[in-house]
């Protein structure tokens, strides 16, 4: 047994409770992937080599360039209508990004506001919002989304609204829980005693403190939302053709699967996977970063 120990003189690091202070251990890979996808989404018009919606029937089912029969004109091959897969993937990023982010923000906004109201005001407001949340949470997101899509019909903005309407409940529940414990904290009680109005307290004291949880939840929900959107597209009730969406590409590609046209399904699927993976990794990192207490999420 050793009889001496190294005495490491270190001053304990200050605990920053709410800020995303340290940039030292950024999750490089997820951020890079998301950055690439965002970049592709924004500059799709410039980046894509071909028009994603128009194909040439003479160039159908070309495989990617590294396989026999492929060429560098269509790096990742073409689909059943002769459309360039790479271009469709790039424009598909736009759909995923726009729908994903907007829906998450939309759901987050509604859910956070309702969660704060329910948690802070209590009473019948709380009961109404919570009963509604419980009831809506009983329906799986996908099922509910399919139902709504069947009613209102497909269009990109309809999908965004639908996803927002389906997923706000997740936020409401989490935020309400946070608000309930925040209500008991000293600084909130002080504000009450000081005579601040309920609205001021909710806006200036409660809201900033639940924003952390909301952000973490948002990153985690991004993955879920994207998969739901892809599922909706796959089933044919998502963003309507000819606009390219990754889920739709998977659905189209299914036809060619039995004959071995693998790139029509594997490539868009990988894109979805990469995006969801990155969102999940980012969410996990944020969760630990912002407050270890949030690990329950």
């Amino acid at each position, binding site marked *: *047994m*050793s*009889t*001496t*120990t*190294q*005495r*490491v*003189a*270190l*001053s*304990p690091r200050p605990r920053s409770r709410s800020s995303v202070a340290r940039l030292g251990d950024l999750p490089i890979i997820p951020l890079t992937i998301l950055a690439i996808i965002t970049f592709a989404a924004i500059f799709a018009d410039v980046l894509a080599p071909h028009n994603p919606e128009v194909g040439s029937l003479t160039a159908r089912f070309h495989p990617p360039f590294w396989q026999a029969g492929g060429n560098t004109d269509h790096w990742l091959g073409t689909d059943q209508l002769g459309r360039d897969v790479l271009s469709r993937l790039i424009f598909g990023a736009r759909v995923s990004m726009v729908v994903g982010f907007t829906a998450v923000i939309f759901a987050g906004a509604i859910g956070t506001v309702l969660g704060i109201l329910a948690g802070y005001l209590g009473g019948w407001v709380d009961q109404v919002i919570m009963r509604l949340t419980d009831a809506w949470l009983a329906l799986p997101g996908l099922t509910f989304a399919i139902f709504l899509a069947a009613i209102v019909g497909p269009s990109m903005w309809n999908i965004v609204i639908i996803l927002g309407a389906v997923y706000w409940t997740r936020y409401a529940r989490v935020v309400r829980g946070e608000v309930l414990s925040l209500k008991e904290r000293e600084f909130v009680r002080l504000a009450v005693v000081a005579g601040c109005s309920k609205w001021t307290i909710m806006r200036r004291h409660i809201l900033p403190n639940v924003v952390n949880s909301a952000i973490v939840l948002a990153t985690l929900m991004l993955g879920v939302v994207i998969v739901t959107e892809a599922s909706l597209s796959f089933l044919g009730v998502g963003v309507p053709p000819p606009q390219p969406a990754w889920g739709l590409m998977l659905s189209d590609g299914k036809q060619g699967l039995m004959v071995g046209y693998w790139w029509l399904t594997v490539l868009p699927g990988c894109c979805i996977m990469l995006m969801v993976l990155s969102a999940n990794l980012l969410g996990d990192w944020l969760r630990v970063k912002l407050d270890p207490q949030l690990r329950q999420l």
Partner: protein
Amino acid sequence: MAAIPGRPLLELDNLSTHYVSAQGTRVVRAVDEVSLRVHAGETVGIVGESGSGKSTLALSILRVLPTAAQIVSGHMWFEGEDLVQKSDAEMRHVRGKRIAMILQDPMASLNPLFTIGNQVAEPIRVHEGVGRSKAWERARNLLKAVRIPSPETRVTQYPHEMSGGMRQRIVGAIGISCEPRLLIADEPTTSLDLTIQAQYLNLLRELQREHGLALIFITHNLGIVAKMCDQLVVMYAGRVVESGPVSRIFNTPAHPYTKALLNSIPRMSDTRQRLTAIDGQPPDLSSLPRGCSFAARCPSAFDRCRKETPPEFNLDGGRTARCWLASVAMQSGAA
């Protein structure tokens, strides 16, 4: 209360247990060069604030430390063997059988999904290979020994069906089930009602006499120490700052921390209006200051205290004190 002669049952010799953070950057010296002795049949009290290292010390003796903690140096002599050197498999034969431990919160210590009988009989079956019915019979007897009424019915009940006091007795029953030589009690009465505390302490004393147990009693309550213990060990910031017979220490405490602790107990005869507390906070165990760890809060501190860490000085009557004042006292006349 007489000193018991002969070799000690348990002797800790400069034991140090440190916690190391995951990245290896922070080292918390939870137990630092602790030496103490427990003789057969004796009751030793270990007193200190939260964070003084008492519980880590107890867990170190039985080597049930969390993964981040390790015994880094020292020896633990128990019945002639060094527990620090034993493998985990060998330690398993010590735990529960030769040295037992009872924890603070009886509700949390008992597994909610198993019956009382199952949990009391368990160590008997594991350590002594006794069959089920015989073990359960012994369990019933043990419940009787800890004064639980109608043990036959209790044995098939679940922990949540008992009161706090009863649960702690059951934990005690588990502790003595395999007739250990030493029982370590980590704040066993802290979560009990005051009225129940006294009963429980009496029970412990009886059990001790009947079974010839040595007892290490960890507490922050000096009143309990006065009632239960023969010897006292005072811990501060992971180190032993004073030790010796209880009555002597209570009468003439050698270390300023002990003095302050004794002073802070409010007495009925006190005419002062305010409660005496000890100024300041215990130090951060991962970055201990130079010199004596109590110096910042000590009313009698002088220069040397802040520069050099005092060693443990042996004083008269089997006492020790980790204080420069003690060396001064020794030089100035006490043999």
